[in-house]
């Protein structure tokens, strides 16, 4: 079954999902491939030929990897970063405005004392990081 495991490595190896989800996907694909191999074996096909046939019917590991990654992760990494950047700028900008409007002594800065000490650029960087992390986790 070395060829099956090598195939699964190529499909699941760098999927951008959490480890439990990656293992779940791998187990499901392995279960299908093993069933297909067993089906051929009952028709008298040798183990290696049966594995080759099952993998050929499954299709390109590269294409399957791409499709699974798209379904489970959604956007490409650069689009995700762009979304994170946009959201971070909006949130950071609104915070900066709120701090300016309160003159550094309003309710807002009492709730988040450290905010008054930070300039708007740092706030944007902070919230960009938070937003990017949140989007990536989603």
């Amino acid at each position, binding site marked *: 079954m070395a060829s099956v495991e090598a195939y699964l490595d190529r*499909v699941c190896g760098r999927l951008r999902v959490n480890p439990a989800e990656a293992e*779940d*996907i791998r*187990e*499901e*694909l*392995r*279960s*299908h491939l*093993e*069933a*297909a191999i*067993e089906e051929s074996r009952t028709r008298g096909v040798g183990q290696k030929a049966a594995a080759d046939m099952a993998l050929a*019917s*499954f*299709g*390109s*590991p590269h*294409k*399957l990897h791409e*499709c*699974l990654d*798209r*379904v*489970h992760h959604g956007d490409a990494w650069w689009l995700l970063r762009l979304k994170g950047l946009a959201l971070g700028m909006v949130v950071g900008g609104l915070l900066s405005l709120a701090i300016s409007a309160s003159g550094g002594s309003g309710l807002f800065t009492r709730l988040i004392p450290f905010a008054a000490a930070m300039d708007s650029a740092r706030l944007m960087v902070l919230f960009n990081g938070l937003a990017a992390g949140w989007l990536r986790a989603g």
Partner: protein
Amino acid sequence: MAAIGGDILKGNTLTLILSLLEEQPMYGFQISREIERRSQGALRFREGLLYPALHQLEREGLVEAEWRASNQGPRRKYYQLTRHGMREAEKLRRRWLAFAGAVNQVLGGHTSG
């Protein structure tokens, strides 16, 4: 029967999957063999690509998945329609039958020449 693949099959994969799951919960290998058997081998696709389709359906809330133990080997991941999936299956089937009926009407009388 000659194999049918490409865009026609790709565009109707979800209809096929949802229609089969309307009958009973199934696992991926079972779905692929059932499509092949009922179409007498005419509908064949890269079996691996069934899984992104199933996972997409799961993410959209049309199916839900559950691992079940098997007497004949490793456990299997079964998919079954949600209520939303049942409505979608019915909608897709009606759409396909309307399309197929319209195409047949256009082709009528010219298929045996």
